[in-house]
């Protein structure tokens, strides 16, 4: 039962990353590559009717985490207190940037909210990558100092950074050079992803330029992925042991590589959606590979006094998990139907939606 909910949760998170990921990416593109008012319009039209529903995947994943793995929810949300609060504030800024920009026609007003939207998208992409880095690296569960736990074994608290900036330090921080690297990968990957979405959903003049951007960034992404896999060995001496034990899992890295190399053909795609498909595959494969490599851990412990959190020692009680399946099954069907309708009605190019005009 735990395993079932674990798969559900990871799937929902992956869906979240793919969907809200293109929103963030569009925001980054908006920040760096859109010059004219028309470009900006095209970008906001392309994500306007979707971002709110996309963000619900985060809320719903949070809900499922809370209900199926309450101990993990409690431990990680209080332990990552500060970064989560900043993520919240950034989400707020991003949403109001997007929603309020079109309400007043004034150059300064528009400039302020454009920047709010763009910068918060960029930082969110960075933070989500950093978050993934923290989960891979692990935390000092129980707050062990000199061999003694200062909290219950499954609680911890992380400051934003530690003075040495190293993932091997005694006192870990949220940001160190390893987590930052994953943050940068996330920014690059989501920028590609967002650009692909814009190419898919609009006829803007920006599209040709974006294809070049996607191509160049993808070169950087390949380099970053190679570096990170190499470095991984420093953090975790044996990162592939799960894959060696269960060779079926190689499918995940394979998905990732398909996405990564497929993206290089961005300029020759006949159908505009294909690029988006490839960057989605990259995100999906990357996430699942990472998760598969630490399985069944969900939050590793960096000390050898308190045990890792695994999906088995953080789960809720049997009865609740069992009964949850019933309503969840109904809900999933409904959600799929909503999404189908939503993307059907807003299928095709979105240049004329007139998002945010009043």
């Amino acid at each position, binding site marked *: 039962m735990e395993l079932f909910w674990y798969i559900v949760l990871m799937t929902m998170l992956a869906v979240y990353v793919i969907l809200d990921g293109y929103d963030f990416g569009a925001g980054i593109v908006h920040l760096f590559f859109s010059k004219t008012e028309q470009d900006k319009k095209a970008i906001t039209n392309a994500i306007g009717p979707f971002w709110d529903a996309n963000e619900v995947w985060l809320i719903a994943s*949070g809900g499922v985490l809370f209900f199926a793995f309450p101990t993990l*929810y409690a431990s990680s949300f*209080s332990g990552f207190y500060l970064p989560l609060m900043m993520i*919240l504030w950034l989400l707020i800024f991003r*949403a109001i940037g997007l929603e*309020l920009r079109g309400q007043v026609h004034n150059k300064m007003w528009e400039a302020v909210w454009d920047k709010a939207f763009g910068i918060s998208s960029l930082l969110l992409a960075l933070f989500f990558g950093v978050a993934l880095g923290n989960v891979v690296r692990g935390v000092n569960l129980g707050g062990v100092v000199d061999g003694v736990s200062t909290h219950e074994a499954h609680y911890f608290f992380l400051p934003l950074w530690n003075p040495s900036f190293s993932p091997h330090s005694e006192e870990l921080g949220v940001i160190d050079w390893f987590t930052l690297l994953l943050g940068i990968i996330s920014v690059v990957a989501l920028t590609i992803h967002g650009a692909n979405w814009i190419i898919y959903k609009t006829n803007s003049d920006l599209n040709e330029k974006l294809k070049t951007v996607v191509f160049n960034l993808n070169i950087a992404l390949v380099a970053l992925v190679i570096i990170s896999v190499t470095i991984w060995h420093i953090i975790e001496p044996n990162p592939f042991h799960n894959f060696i034990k269960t060779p079926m899992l190689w499918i995940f890295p394979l998905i990732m590589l398909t996405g990564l190399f497929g993206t290089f053909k961005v300029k020759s795609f006949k159908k505009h959606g294909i690029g988006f498909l490839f960057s989605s595959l990259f995100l999906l494969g990357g996430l699942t590979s990472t998760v598969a490599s630490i399985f069944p851990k969900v939050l590793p412990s960096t000390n050898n006094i308190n045990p890792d959190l695994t999906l088995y020692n953080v789960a809720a*009680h049997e009865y609740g998990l069992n009964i949850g399946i019933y309503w969840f099954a109904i809900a999933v069907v409904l959600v799929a139907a909503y999404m189908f309708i939503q993307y059907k009605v807003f299928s095709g190019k979105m240049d004329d939606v007139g998002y945010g005009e009043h």
Partner: protein
Amino acid sequence: MEDMLFYDRMQFAFTITFHYLFPQLTMGLSLLIVYFKWKFLRTHIDKYNDAAKFWMKIFALNFAMGVVTGIPMEFQFGTNWAKFSELTGGIIGQTLAMEGMFSFFLESSFLGLFLFGEKLLGHKLHFLTGFLVFLGSWASGYLIIATHSWMQYPVGYEVLENGKFVLNNFGALFSNPWLLPSYLHNQAASMVTSSFVVAAIGAFYILNNKHHEFGKLFVKTGVIFGLISSLLVAFPTGDLAAKNVVKHQPVTFAAMEGIFHTEDGGSEIVLIGQPNIREKKLDNKIAVPNILSFLTYQDWNAEIKGLDQFDPDVYPTNIPGLYYAYHIMVGLGTIFIGLMLLATLQLFRKKLYTTKWILWAIVFMLPFPYIANTTGWYTAELGRQPWLVYNLLRTSEGASPTVSSGNTLFTLLGFIGLYLLLGLLFLMLAGKIINKGPELEKHA
């Protein structure tokens, strides 16, 4: 430890109070918009469609505020109340996860269609998307109140040796006797907010000699819905909510009503008076004998327990706050009924649109449903103290063990600053939409 808890509580109270300013309008207004759209489908008079469109603009702005302030709520159970989440997550996580899966998806998917899809969908389907948004927001209210009801009156659970609460009866979460009265009362109250807002904007237009047609439509709709919902709030729903409190949280009820001493031969109802905790009495009291006993038990002489019958260890922690919150809510409720009765009377005598002082009163009333709703929630929440889960888990046992007070104060200040900005922006933009008014759109 003490001030850590204090900041956690302040932050939760501040953020939830701010959040709920928006959903109370969302829920009620979605119904009124559906009503306007339905009128249009039946009559094909453009006025109704334009009215629906106008309120959709306010709705969209309000909804965005509700969403951005709602996400922090979902996070804060884990960030600030980790121990509570760990112990009860298997139960309240259930209803919260359902809220995300059943209502937020519904609302957010169809809101996009509702706001941008009129041309693509045609009027009938457009009406349907509006209806689904309404359904989503009311389902959201239902599930959140189901969660809250469990904290007030826990059911269907058992406690394990390690202190964890686990669910053993899913159905009980929804047949909780606390749930239905609370939900209906809350929804009626949110209808009060939205009706009063619609009426107030209408009255504002009439008094300003602007958008006269719409002014009349809004005042009329607002007053009729306002009267119905004000009545429903008091009876039967408020009455039922109060009966739940008497039955399941008698000490809370004593504090709400300001009853320090149990009286033989029936309790009086206090209209005005200031609780004096040290001397255990109300100062400057004005009260009517025996009414409270009758309202509660339909018996003039029934005994109602006073605070003297309980152990001070389970007294609500903030008795004066609770007492005032309750009296402000009930007092405002009475005033709402009075005003709406008068307005309806004038409406039937076809004099409402020219009776200036009533129009002024309606405009002036605009903030008060928000105050009544907020104080109502303070009644519920302060009344539950010192418990997080009534009689089972104390608030002091629920906070995050590792988050220090400095960090919580930091984020509390951050929220205050950010929400101040949001509030100002909201008022400014809503003001702009209202001032521009529902211009008659060109109909192709």
